[in-house]
């Protein structure tokens, strides 16, 4: 084995041009495998997180919000939205058969004016009935969200106990949430009482977001949990038929439209990764065959001094494994340099929930990409190794003499 590694290293060192080309090929392969897998996993992770954060079976919004797709814009991209309805709609929904819980949410974006310290989306929830935001808050904050308190999303860069001003109302940051990979990371969360006072301040400053709806009774959406034994679709249809000027949607259908988009992107990335993998194996194999022809004499000399065919194969495989390993580390490193700092850009470009996997999964991905690349190198050199070791040493030397 020492012979194989010693000669392999010397060959790599003495043929820098050839070695660099092969290292770059291996790096390209590892880059595409790691980056491709990371994006696909992050998209899947993002969807799971989005599904978990949505939490409700049925989402009810004012009719005009649904037609504009405004809710998805808020949830996915954090694009500010203003749509309101009277809370009487929620009362009606609560009284309907099959509705176990119905809880309101209120969306308000800060204005680009002196009254607001930062540009943010404010999401209000009712601590008494909320079943979607509070479980998430509890993952990172065990206290209660009192009047004037806000919890900030993961991408909001504000320190704890920092004050921020929303339409001249002072709010205090009490906690920061875990990342979701969606627009929810760019929002801040407060109780409905707090948000109602903020909207009153906004009205007094001349911002008319509510239209004809009274500030005390305005809500943006109703999150509905369907009771066991009832069909989500039936409850949704019931709401659409019996509650005026609202549109009820099954959250499953919101997810499925995103899932379809995600599935397409994932499929394309997976296909590209597989194609690159096969292409790299073919290119590496061709390179190895070309090199093999150039190295026929070298192998013949080794046979003459006593190397067995197996030893020669081992030497070539060691050489390709070393080259692939160096290239893979380079490729994975480069992919990490691109994929991690540009996570936000990738998320914006893809317009899909995008949440990086945890450190353990990333480590497994790194290992997988390294192994796949080294395996590709070994596979592509195996044919040449076999062919080379079977050449007739005496004849090769006579041809090349």
């Amino acid at each position: 084995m020492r012979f194989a590694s010693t000669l392999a290293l010397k060959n790599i060192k003495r043929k820098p041009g050839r070695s660099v080309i092969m290292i770059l090929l291996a790096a390209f392969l590892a880059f595409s495998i790691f980056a491709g897998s990371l994006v696909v996993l992050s998209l899947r992770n993002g969807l799971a997180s989005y599904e978990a954060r949505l939490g409700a079976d049925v989402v009810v919004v004012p009719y005009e919000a649904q037609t504009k797709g405004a809710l998805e814009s808020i949830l996915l991209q954090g694009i500010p939205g203003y749509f309101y309805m009277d809370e009487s709609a929620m009362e009606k929904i609560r009284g309907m058969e099959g509705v176990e819980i119905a809880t309101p949410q209120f969306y308000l974006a800060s204005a680009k004016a002196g009254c607001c310290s930062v540009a943010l989306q404010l999401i209000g929830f009712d601590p008494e009935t909320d079943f979607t935001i509070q479980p998430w808050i509890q993952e990172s904050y065990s206290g209660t969200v009192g009047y004037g308190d806000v919890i900030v999303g993961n991408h909001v860069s504000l320190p704890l106990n920092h004050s921020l001003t929303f339409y001249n109302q002072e709010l205090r940051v009490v906690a920061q949430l875990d990342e979701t990979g969606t627009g929810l990371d760019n929002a801040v969360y407060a109780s409905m009482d707090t948000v109602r006072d903020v909207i009153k301040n906004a009205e007094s400053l001349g911002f008319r977001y509510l239209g004809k709806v009274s500030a005390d009774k305005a809500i943006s959406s109703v999150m509905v949990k369907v009771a066991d034994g009832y069909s989500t679709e039936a409850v949704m249809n019931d709401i659409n038929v019996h509650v005026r000027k609202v549109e009820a949607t099954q959250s499953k259908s919101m997810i499925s439209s995103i899932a379809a988009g995600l599935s397409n992107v994932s499929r394309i990335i997976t296909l590209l990764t597989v194609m690159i993998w096969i292409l790299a194996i073919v290119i590496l194999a061709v390179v190895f065959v070309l090199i093999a022809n150039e190295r026929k004499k070298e192998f013949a000399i080794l046979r003459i001094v006593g190397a067995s065919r197996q030893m020669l194969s081992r030497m070539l495989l060691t050489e390709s494994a070393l080259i692939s390993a160096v290239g893979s580390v380079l490729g994975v490193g480069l992919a990490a340099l691109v994929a991690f700092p540009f996570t936000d850009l990738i998320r914006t470009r893809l317009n899909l929930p995008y949440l990086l996997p945890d450190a353990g999964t990333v480590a497994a991905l790194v290992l997988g990409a390294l192994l796949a690349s080294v395996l590709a190198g070994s596979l592509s050199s195996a044919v040449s190794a076999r062919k080379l070791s079977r050449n007739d040493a005496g004849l090769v030397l006579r041809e090349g003499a």
Partner: protein
Amino acid sequence: MELRAENVSRRFFRNSGQANYFYAVKDAALLLTSGSLTEITGRSGSGKSTLLNILAGLLEPTEGRVFLDRVDLYSMADGPRSELRSRCIGVVPQGQTGLHSLTVLENVKLPCLLYGEKLSDASALELLEKVGIADLKDVYPNELSGGEMRRLAIARALVKKPAILLADEPTGDLDDENTQKILRLLRQEADEGTAVLLVTHEREAAAYADRLYRMDGGILAEASAQ
């Protein structure tokens, strides 16, 4: 130790088809014994190198057998046969046979590296001295002349003190002075107990040989002894 070829033949097919073949070596019998230098001469393409490769365990004969003492070389698997070649048979092949990734000194030590044997630089240098290229020990083969490369191959073949030495045109590319030096070295090896086979075109080599053979059209025949 002795190396014995019993009626070995090697048939090659021409590219034009299976029915079209020729014998590079036909029914050759040869015995190389310890302490003797055997010389084979003949024209190019007469089958000398093919026979040498068969004797080295590198090219399986289509007929006949080759014995190293009592061991039938071609009844062995490639691994053990290669190991046996490394241990007992030194081969000086035709052509320029230095590994380009290794220095001259590393090339000479290569047979020892294969099976993890230790060899001091001093021992390898001593051999390089004998063949006259000690001052080139750190040079890579692409900087060597044809003659220097031949001497490198000879030093490498002798590095494990083989019982059998098979040298194919070892003095090709050498000037008269170095030719004599190498022929004397081979004679000395034989005198110290090695069974030496010398395949050559050199007329003066006959003066160093114990037995002379001539090969013509694949047929090996004993020539007049010295």
